[in-house]
């Protein structure tokens, strides 16, 4: 298990699982973004962002998640959100984030779904 200040993450094969903190705001969002970029730079082909600890996501958090999705797309990596609470799920649905990424029940389901999915083509 690696940490980026307070951000936990670990790798399963070429998939990185990054755990979002309890409140996804500017400070924690930037840490998650850095960690995701680091994982993609070190060769990860998929990202699972786990929200099991997350109670709240604010606007900056949403913007940063969109940035992570963008970067992942450019790197040809897939992004899956896991263990999203109802309130956050409703927010992601309302803003259309769930049209861009799959949402899994938990980390295991996310990892399983990724193992069944062929890798997306890289976007130049």
């Amino acid at each position, binding site marked *: 298990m690696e940490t980026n200040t307070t951000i936990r993450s670990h790798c399963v094969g070429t998939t990185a699982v990054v755990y979002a903190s309890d409140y996804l705001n*500017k400070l924690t969002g930037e840490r998650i973004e850095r960690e995701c970029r680091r994982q993609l730079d070190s060769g990860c082909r998929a990202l699972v962002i786990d929200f099991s600890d997350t109670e709240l996501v*604010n*606007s*900056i*958090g*949403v*913007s*940063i998640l*969109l*940035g992570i*999705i*963008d970067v992942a797309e450019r790197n040809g990596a897939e992004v899956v959100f896991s263990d999203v609470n109802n309130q956050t799920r*409703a*927010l992601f649905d*309302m*803003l*259309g*984030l769930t*049209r*861009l990424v799959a949402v899994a029940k938990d980390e295991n389901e996310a990892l399983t779904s990724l193992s069944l999915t062929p890798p997306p083509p890289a976007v130049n």
Partner: protein
Amino acid sequence: MDQSNQQLIHTFGALADLGQEVANTGDFNEMVQTSIHLLLGTLALRRGAVVECGSAASMDCVAVWGVDRSSIEALEICDEEKAPLVDATLNSLLLKNGSTNGFIGRYRDTLIANGIALVIPMVVRSELKGFVFLGEKASGAEFTTEDFDTIRAMTRHIGVGIHTHRLLEQVAQRAAENRRLYEELRAIYRDTVRAFAAAIDIKDKYTQGHSERVGKYSEIIARELGWSEDEVEGIQIAGYLHDVGKLVVDRDIINAPYHINAKQSSELSRHPSAGYEILAPINHPYADIPLMAKYHHERLDGRGYPDGLVDEQIPLGAKIVSLADSFDAMTTDRPYRRRRSFEDVVQDLRQNSGTQFDYSVVGAFARAILKEVSGETKERRIVKLLGKGYLEGEQVSTLLTDLIADMERATQNKKQEQSAGAGNS
């Protein structure tokens, strides 16, 4: 919770965060970058930028997210293109609907190629300050009327934040410029005063450099007494100017080689009051300079002039200048005598403390001299003013140490007498 309520809560949260952010006067770039993040996150937009209109036609990209900065900074807008954008409706600024004329028309293809869907003018007090460029919604959905309202409100917030920051920058620049000018004026004032002091001393061929030395001794004593830098500068000026009243005294009296008669003495005694009259109309940057000149010949025992004030009636600054003046008179050659030995001077100070000189002022001066003699202070200004050899010898430190002890004791006794007197009354 239905979706419209949820959107409302999400937007309110973003507006509250944005309000807090634009009020942050710290890091400007951070403020704008966070603001665009908040706007993008409110509606889940994938890209955006904030640009400021420069002084000419150029644009300065102050925050960018997911957009190529150089393509945005290559845009230019002329003054005639600004006016129609101030009142433009957001719907007309949607690039796919937008005008083919003016700024939008000119750059529509470039902006669309950069993923921009909407161009919002940033207007503050009816003046176009810049733009917020926004990309499509992540969901691919169309912008709604509510989205436009949110975008307009948040853009206004960002515009005000940028405008306020720029105003504060201007204020800070002007304050810095004023400070610099003020420092220059003070330097000119100081130089003028020093030149004036030299002019005063030239009138008296036997005491050349006296005013400058009195200024320096006064400054040293005040610093030893713990005065602020501003007060120290003030008393230095007072020292330079303390004899300005001599300009109105007959040159023959000032330069009389031996003792002067009663009439001449009375004429010479006018100089503190004359000095006050010369200095009082001037708006000095320091307090009480005219009074220090007026009272530098007053004595604690009331036998001084011009007003015969006693102890507490005499301003401390005047007591300092008085000591500096007498010390310089004792330690420089005069036409009718050589300067006195340091031992003799110390004896004079001890003897006249409490009647002519203030104990605490004499004590402070003795401490300052001792610090130089003992090497406690690197700067040896008093030693230099007195000339080589004057403060040499083992007995100098002993003389000063004893004088300091005597002055401390006397100061203490005086305080006790004063508090006992206050108790009795």
